[in-house]
């Protein structure tokens, strides 16, 4: 079985601060991490591999420094790591990104064989778009299963997989066939403390670089210039002001005051 995981290196959003004077993000000193959801995608792929045997490949599109995230993925038990890196990719929006990743994935398939399961995180914590996975799945024209919280069953003979996913009103179990594309939530698994042999293999592994020269990626479909969406402006939201501390002496008065303050909102929502 061959599993391919899409991972993105992101700035740790929880450490990004806003400079309200200049309206920009302070990214200096913010560590670059593997998008947390993607780590669970890696973990899930490695678990499936351990159970059914096979190989796990990962790919990331990003600048050369994203290599460190690939190394980390390798140390979690991944077998092959690919860095899709080229100047022409800079500034790609989700349509262009999913195009490049799709083309990159095809190159990996050429090298390492057909992929049975593609995995990605449900969304990246920097952009929060949750679009890249659906985009790639559509280009491959394979079944897409988003927001997966568990993989229940895999039948290698029938080449089917049962996945539990979140929906608005609860959860549903889907059965689909290989190849398929799954985007995962955090609760799909707990990330294990990787065994030492994985780390040693990762330290020895080399990362393969993919770019417009060694793949069939059409550079007229990538990058800022060729992305349909453009950023007109970026600005910081109004700083959330510290609100009101309510203390009206007695608890009853305090709570009554609170209620009066939110009554109209409750009305608008049709709660009362």
């Amino acid at each position, binding site marked *: 079985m061959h599993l391919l995981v899409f991972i993105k290196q992101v700035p740790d959003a929880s450490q990004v601060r806003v400079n309200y004077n200049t309206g920009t993000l302070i990214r200096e000193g913010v560590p670059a991490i593997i998008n947390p959801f993607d780590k669970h995608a890696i973990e899930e792929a490695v678990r499936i591999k351990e159970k059914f045997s096979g190989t796990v490949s990962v790919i990331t599109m990003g600048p050369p420094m994203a290599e460190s995230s690939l190394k980390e993925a390798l140390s979690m038990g991944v077998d092959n790591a690919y860095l899709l890196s080229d100047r022409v990719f800079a500034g790609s929006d989700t349509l262009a990104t999913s195009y490049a990743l799709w083309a990159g994935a095809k190159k990996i398939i050429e090298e390492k064989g057909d992929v049975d399961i593609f995995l990605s995180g449900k969304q990246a914590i920097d952009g929060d778009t949750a679009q890249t996975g659906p985009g790639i799945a559509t280009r491959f024209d394979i079944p897409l299963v988003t927001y997966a919280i568990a993989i229940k069953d895999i039948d290698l003979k029938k080449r089917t997989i049962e996945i539990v996913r979140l929906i608005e009103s609860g959860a549903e179990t889907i059965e689909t066939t290989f190849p398929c594309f799954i985007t995962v939530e955090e609760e799909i698994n707990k990330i294990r403390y990787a*065994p*030492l042999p994985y780390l040693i293999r990762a330290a020895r592994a080399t990362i393969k670089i993919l770019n417009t020269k060694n793949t069939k990626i059409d550079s007229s479909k990538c990058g800022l210039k060729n992305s349909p969406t453009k950023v007109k402006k970026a600005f910081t939201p109004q700083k959330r002001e510290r609100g009101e501390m309510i203390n009206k002496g007695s608890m009853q008065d305090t709570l009554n005051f609170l209620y009066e303050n939110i009554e109209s909102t409750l009305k608008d929502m049709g709660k009362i």
Partner: protein
Amino acid sequence: MKRKDFDVIIVGAGPSGLAAGFVLAKAGVNTIIIERGKFPGSKNVMGGIFYTKAMDDLIPEFYKEAPVERHIIEQNLWFMDDVSHLGVSFKSQKYNSEPFNSFSVFRAKFDRWFAKKVEQMGALIINETVVTQPIVEGGKVVGVKTDRPDGDLYADVVIGADGVNSFLAKQLGLRNKIKPNIVALAVKEVIGLDKEKINDRFQLRSDKEGAAYEMTGPFLDGMEGMAWLYTNSSSISIGVGVVIQDLIEHKTNPNDLLEKIKAHPSVAPLIEGGQTKEYLAHMIPEGGYYATPKLFTDGFLTTGDAIMFVNNVNREGSNLAIESGKLAAKTYLEAKQTGDFSSKSLSRYQDKIRKSFACKDLSMYKNMPKLLEEKRYFLTKYPQFFIDFVYDWFSVDGVSKPDKIKKAKKEFGDKFGYVNFAKDLYAIWRYMIR
């Protein structure tokens, strides 16, 4: 057949472990370095003054490529009381030429760079993994256990470069528990400041030149310790280290001491307007020569801070760590020729250490700790007297200069006694110079 995963396992990717790894990997030895931090240097967030020589021997002109801050062209030693400082200052343009005597560095950056070099030489560095104990078979160290699943590793030789707390040396019985009188607790801050401001305040002509200050004296209330301040590219490092025993006895907290130093009228203007960017507390072995534990056993060598290889008088540590790492690696290479990694074969390491400049330096200062323990007033009363005298000397108050000298002579005689003073001078000579 006996299991063997690597030729050498190095525990700890500090300067000494990395130096050992560099030499070994360069000689084609199959080497792995295990580091518990997220990356080399991450546990040692801040830096220090890095003396060039040992590293330059290893990687010539490393400073052209490595992340260094400023090369130091001025060194100051200040004796301070609460309101004054009496300083000795040395600045020389000789320090402005390559290969430079010393640099200020940030360990997180520097060690990371060094680690890359070591990896390029072919050693494996495994981060985020803690070595929990040595594996000993038949009285010989044959590997280590780590906290990872499937985490045992076997090798011909293990090098313990695991820093001042060295669990390995302790577990192997090479050293005793560190006593509070031979370790200092250091606290340190990095204060961000504009390059131009630093150049102005410290009279430096470019942001490559740097200055360093060491401070001691009565403001420490008789505790044995040293404060320091030096310039980085666009920040200032300031810190203080005090022997733990003294902290306990004086019921003092090093953070308060650091605040006191930052507020000192001679120091405050140097750091004014800066913003604290990082904060660190760490132990420094201060035991010097006598604290050095046994350096080896069957299949095992230990280096750097783990052998208390720190010259606390001249604030050297990382360069000595590098030196000892190199020597450990060379010892291994020699032993490899015969395939004998027994204690006897590895004992060559001890000789090498003895012959090194570092050990000679340590030997020179070997009685310092003891001397200071006995004659604590070296740090308090003498400096205070001289500060007061200088103050008096420069004050124009109607008393003639000859009279001032006369008065001082008398006071000195009353306070210390000339005979005692002579004895103290002799003691210093006997303890240190001889």
